[in-house]
């Protein structure tokens, strides 16, 4: 216990606003203090906008081929150039945002439900629950994760839903372990005993008392794995699993463009690759920033 922040002037400080207002204020403070987080947040907004309204504002139909204009470098008419079928790379990159973003969100939501709940239960109940969840996580971790994802998609079938499921399964250990650790330190906390005294059932203690307390950490975890989920989805598409051509998707576009790199048509693979990199970069930075917002003490 230190007295370092306790201040003589604190009694005269204005009453703190509670709830959303305080969170917004705190968020503004963190963004102002940490320019990188502000930048990441800006990027995130751009990605969300691209995903939401991208398909309606792009200059060309992402699927319309125009052989006359094939393999043209970046120009005013085609900002990111055109591919081997004359499709506008810029339009395709923007339109692809929606699909990649959707895959990432869906898989993260799914893995949060599976891994988060299993982990919380394991950490809280211990014993056999803990052993089973722990061994499942270990088993998943024992495989090279990308190979495992390939295997799952290959086995379940080549669809977008299965990419979501595969990405969720490979991320399961991360969520289960974080949630387990966080729930475990709280299982004997005073407020859990108090909840038991108040007549809460064990299930209710887990869901209504423990889970809300580990949400901030889980949200950070979600943001950090979003980047990985996008990469994973793109990677699967790159090797020909999951999303199939001619759908606009970053992984496929990089795969298609890779063949043209040697002959000098770098833009076909470069721009979707850059979009992928920026998205992953953005989610990772955002995760760091979110951690600052939810837990100021861990700030470095």
């Amino acid at each position, binding site marked *: 216990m*230190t007295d370092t922040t306790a201040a*003589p002037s604190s009694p005269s400080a204005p009453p703190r606003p509670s709830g959303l207002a305080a969170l917004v204020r705190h968020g503004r403070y963190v963004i102002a203090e940490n320019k990188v987080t502000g930048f990441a947040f800006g990027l995130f907004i751009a990605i969300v906008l691209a995903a939401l309204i991208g398909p309606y504002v792009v200059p060309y139909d992402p699927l319309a081929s125009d052989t006359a204009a094939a393999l043209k470098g970046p120009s005013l008419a085609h900002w990111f150039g055109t591919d081997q079928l004359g499709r506008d790379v810029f339009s395709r990159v923007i339109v692809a945002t929606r699909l990649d973003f959707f895959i990432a969100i869906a898989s993260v939501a799914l893995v949060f439900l599976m891994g988060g709940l299993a982990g919380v239960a394991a950490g809280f109940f211990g014993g056999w629950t803990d052993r089973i969840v722990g061994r499942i996580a270990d088993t998943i971790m024992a495989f090279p994760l990308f190979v495992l994802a390939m295997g799952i998609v290959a086995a379940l079938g080549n669809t977008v839903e299965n990419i979501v499921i595969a990405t969720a399964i490979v991320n399961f250990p991360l969520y289960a372990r974080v949630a387990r650790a966080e729930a475990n330190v709280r299982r004997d906390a005073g407020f859990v005993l108090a909840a038991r005294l108040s007549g809460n059932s064990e299930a209710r203690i887990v869901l209504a008392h423990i889970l809300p307390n580990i949400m901030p950490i889980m949200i950070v975890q979600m943001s950090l794995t979003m980047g990985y989920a996008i990469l994973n989805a793109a990677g699967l598409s790159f090797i020909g699993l999951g999303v199939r051509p001619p759908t606009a998707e970053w992984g496929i576009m990089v795969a298609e463009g890779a063949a043209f790199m040697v002959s000098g048509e770098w833009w076909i693979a470069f721009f979707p690759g850059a979009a992928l990199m920026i998205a992953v970069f953005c989610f990772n930075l955002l995760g760091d920033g979110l951690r600052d917002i939810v837990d100021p003490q861990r700030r470095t």
Partner: protein
Amino acid sequence: MTIPLIDVRDLTVEFTTRRGIVRAIEHVNIAVAKGQTVGIVGESGSGKSVTSYAVMRLLDRAGRIAEGAVTFSGIAIAAATEPEMRRLRGREMSMIFQNPRAALNPIRKVGHQLEDVLLEQSKAVSTTASEMAIELLEQVKIARPRERYHAFPFELSGGMCQRVVIALALACRPQLLIADEPTTGLDVTTQKTVMELIVELTRERGMSTILITHDLGLAATYCDEIVVMEKGHVVETATSRQVFTAPAHPYTQRLMRATPRPGVSLRDLLPEDDGRSESAAPTVVRLIPVSATRAPLLTVQNLVKEYPRKGLEGFKGVLQKITRRVPPPEPDTFRAVDGISFSIQRSESVGLVGESGCGKSTTSTIVMRLIDKTSGTITFDGEDIGAIPAKKFSRLPLRKRIQMVFQDPTDSLNPRFTAARAIMDPILRLGDIKGASALRARCEELAREVGLPLDLLDRFPHQLSGGQKARVGIARAIALRPELVILDEPTAALDVSVQAVVLNLLQELKESLGMSYLFVSHDLNVVRLLCDRVIVMQAGKIVEEGPTDRVLYEPQAPYTRELLAALPHPRFDQAAPSHRMTAAPMTAAT
């Protein structure tokens, strides 16, 4: 007066926060002469720790010395370079922290940790280091130092760890020792031996010591001079005798008054101008058996709780038991509670006293039906509640009738629940009030009962002070109108002035609601104020039981006597009869 060893003049420390610059301490003056022990006393947030950190120049990044100067035997601390400071720290001034376990490296033998310091400060060469380390352990009165040299911190008790930390601090014969709450978290008997050790070593070596504490009694017992701090200012500097017998500043008087001590009643702890003093003041001596004819509310008989010894749990333990050919060297179980029996009458408060590890918390947790007993019976109002498994108990109607106030108000409130939501929780689960507005009304009623301002109901725990959180915890415990409330050191984490208010609140609630209390505590001075009867526990057994006054003033068991003797009594107070002091001289000072 000679030139002081450490001279703090007009010291102001500022912290840069996002609410602007905050002054943690302002114009603080403290002088410590060679060989003197000075106590800095204050409640949390008074800036006593910041002062000591400024002296060591250990302030974190946001803090800086804004004004004033700290001079340590002629060296200006504020202007010293970092290498100079590093030389000073450890060799010339040392610090003992509050939590001894946290101050030791858990994976290194204590002997090696001592050697590290000796070698680092080149007080020893590698050939002599281990002998010097053992010598140091001997000096801090660790029995069998040669064996303990090889001990890891987790193998030592809290008091032992604190001794090792003291040995570390004294390894290089510093001139100044700063002890920041060195005995908080230690038992009273351990506190006594640790404090005596510090004072003895100080005297022996002609060191100066700064003792930082919230306990005025402790400071008065062991210090020559006391500096009282309030909200970043020094309000009084005087000799211990003067502070203890005739405090000059109103804050010191208030602090003095709120400190539980022999011969005062609960109401005496509150400031004189408190408006509630006209309500029926209970006297120290209360009726002992309220209604001996009526059946007791709670009867505990031959209660036993056994725990498996460490290392023998789970599958491996079972395997070991099966495969082991020779009989185990010691029983596989450890008896935390060893066959105790007691009863609690209706509207009676019973104190359960003992040092850490004596089984008092285990007992209260079993009575609370949060864990299961090994054997014995627990009868609550004629019903054998001991037979109901703890897991089932939480949803029975009986749950309403036994509630608990926890030790740490911060830990026992869900950080994501507002105060109102926390108070409502038991009503939602077990109560019969339906509808949001009715719940809210009940919540406000409870808040009024415990004296919690209604506008604080929508705040989260981190937005409340310690005392306010304690009130929320109490409101939650009484929300279902329980008949038995277990108070598990409800004031241990609070400042004395807040403790005084909370204890009075508990007493008032008991009178108005007719509840019974089982008060679990290590602090005999606090137990005396609130309880009709006291049970003293040692190593899982009851060693003494009886009316509070009898146990405290005419203790029978040697252990009770030892506990009472360990309470810090200022030296100049010992002349007064230790027997019941009806009008203690020091209370007259207020």
